[in-house]
């Protein structure tokens, strides 16, 4: 595959598409704490992998109708954020469970007003995976989505993050299915998000440690609704 740029990236935070208000993603880091276990018999450092951590920092424009209303309150609770590199089905996407640390304005000499918005991961490492929707997908009726090919089955568990940006109807349930042959599908164990009755909202679900995910994965919607717009990012856990 050819090299790609970051053009066309997207960022959703707690079910809100902030992409047009974000000018720069300064940092999206996954790190591992090195534990030094060097023995006296070693001539070089010996290390073990400790806790994983994550950092997200982006710069937003001042938009009093969107980014400012969502970011200025500095919520004390967790926030789910997904950054996608592209909007095609299967494009890479990183999801984080974060806590926002600041909302710091910078008023430049040129009159510009931008905000630095740092986050730290909370409890889980940032999860790099793939979009199971083509950017934001809009269903107007219960729909079986298109499949994303993972190349092979995995047995390391999984996690998925959902952002619902718009909803009209009574209730929609968004769930995951997997398949070995892209023909016969079954519900992924634990792969059903809680029913959504309003937007914006976001959720994260995860499979059991070591859970099997077959080669193909897709998103299906069920329920009573006339329109739902949503994004699902899915990651197969790395082997650790």
């Amino acid at each position, binding site marked *: 595959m050819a090299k790609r740029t970051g053009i066309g990236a997207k960022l959703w935070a707690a079910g809100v598409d902030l992409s047009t208000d974000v000018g720069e993603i300064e940092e999206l880091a996954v790190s591992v704490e090195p534990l030094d276990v060097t023995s006296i018999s070693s001539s070089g450092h010996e290390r073990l992998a400790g806790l994983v951590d994550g950092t997200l920092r982006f710069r937003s424009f001042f938009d009093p109708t969107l980014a400012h209303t969502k970011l200025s309150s500095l919520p004390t609770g967790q926030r789910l954020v997904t950054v996608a590199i592209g909007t095609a089905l299967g494009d890479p996407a990183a999801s984080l469970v974060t806590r926002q640390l600041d909302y710091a304005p910078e008023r430049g000499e040129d*009159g510009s007003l931008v905000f630095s918005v740092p986050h730290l991961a909370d409890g889980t490492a940032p999860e790099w995976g793939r979009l199971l929707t083509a950017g934001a997908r809009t269903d107007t009726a219960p729909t079986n989505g298109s499949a994303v090919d993972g190349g092979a089955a995995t047995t390391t568990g999984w996690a998925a993050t959902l952002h619902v940006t718009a909803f009209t109807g009574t209730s929609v349930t968004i769930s995951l299915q997997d398949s070995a042959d892209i023909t016969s599908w079954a519900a992924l164990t634990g792969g059903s998000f809680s029913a959504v009755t309003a937007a914006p909202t976001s959720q994260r679900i995860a499979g059991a440690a070591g859970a099997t995910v077959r080669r193909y994965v897709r998103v299906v919607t069920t329920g009573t609704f006339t329109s739902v717009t949503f994004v699902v990012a899915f990651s197969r856990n790395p082997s650790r």
Partner: protein
Amino acid sequence: MDLSAVLTAVANHATAAGAAVTPPIRDVRIGGLVPTSQRCIRVAYGGEAPQSRLGATESLGSAIVAERVVVTAWIAAPAGGDANWQAIELELRALKHELRTRLLGDATLGGLITDLEIAAVETEWVTIGESAVYRRLELAVDCDYEEYAIAP
């Protein structure tokens, strides 16, 4: 951005600026760069300009550009001696002062745009045809911003 309304708003300021200089410039129109009188001001769409007031020229999924409106003043070369030539230089400066003051004093053009920026004003000598010589002043007004979605 409503370009028609913005052009009209800028032209209104140009009209007021032209009336405030001595001698006044009363021929002010939208469109048409070629002067049709000895002293005139024309207001025209100047294309795009780099957006400079938002802190970036792109968001994650869109390109952001400013829209430019150009105000051009034409003053025909005078008959007579050096004193008339020198007077034109002072008139140009006075006109520039009136234009910049009025536009920056109405930086949202009555709510039509979010902001505007005026680049350095330039003057030059222009010869049209074989003998028509004009002193020209050009003031570029970068207005607002337009976003164009980028889809790879």
